[in-house]
């Protein structure tokens, strides 16, 4: 069965600093990988996804993530964070089931705090 580990429960960074959120996954085949963001009291918004091809994927709001098969990782990065990036971030891995349908398994999330 697939699994996702987000080792950092809470990260605090200064506005304008760079950011890296870690995600490690376990899955037997080539995974589908996702990053979602959740603002307080809201649903999840898709930031970016990796299905195949270029291992560096660009997302919305200036985020990017790099798929590293050898490390089973899909870390999220942003060169300069803004106060509005404060939120909870979830990494997820998709497993393809029958008929091409997919089940997502989520990590436990990383809460990002931005300080002025």
């Amino acid at each position, binding site marked *: 069965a697939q699994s996702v580990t987000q080792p950092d429960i809470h990260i605090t960074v200064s506005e304008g600093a760079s950011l890296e959120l870690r995600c490690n996954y376990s899955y037997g085949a080539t995974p*589908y990988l996702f990053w979602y963001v959740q603002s307080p009291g809201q*649903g999840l918004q898709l930031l970016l996804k990796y299905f195949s091809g270029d291992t560096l994927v660009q997302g919305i709001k200036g985020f990017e993530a790099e798929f590293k098969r050898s490390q089973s990782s899909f870390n999220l990065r942003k060169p300069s964070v803004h106060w509005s990036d404060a939120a909870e971030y979830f990494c997820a891995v998709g497993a393809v089931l029958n008929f091409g349908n997919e*089940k997502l398994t989520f990590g436990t999330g990383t809460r990002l705090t931005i300080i002025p």
Partner: protein
Amino acid sequence: DVKVTQSSRYLVKRTGEKVFLECVQDMDHENMFWYRQDPGLGLRLIYFSYDVKMKEKGDIPEGYSVSREKKERFSLILESASTNQTSMYLCASGKETQYFGPGTRLLVL
């Protein structure tokens, strides 16, 4: 844009009540999902559906049931609500990529 709506943002119910959470999507997706979200546990899949009248158990189906009578609508039912079902409930739809609704925060007293 994909739109997934949930019938209520906040609900307060009493132990033993029957609770219905409704989810509607407007993108003609075949796949729909119900998750619950608890602090420190992330999102856990309760049930999902690949088509009308089809349902599959997720990782934590106990105490829940679902209904999918129309393609755009997927309902989560708590037959007899209990305090340990106090949680945030998130609906999603989509195939390779899942799109989420705003969530329903349910408090069971």
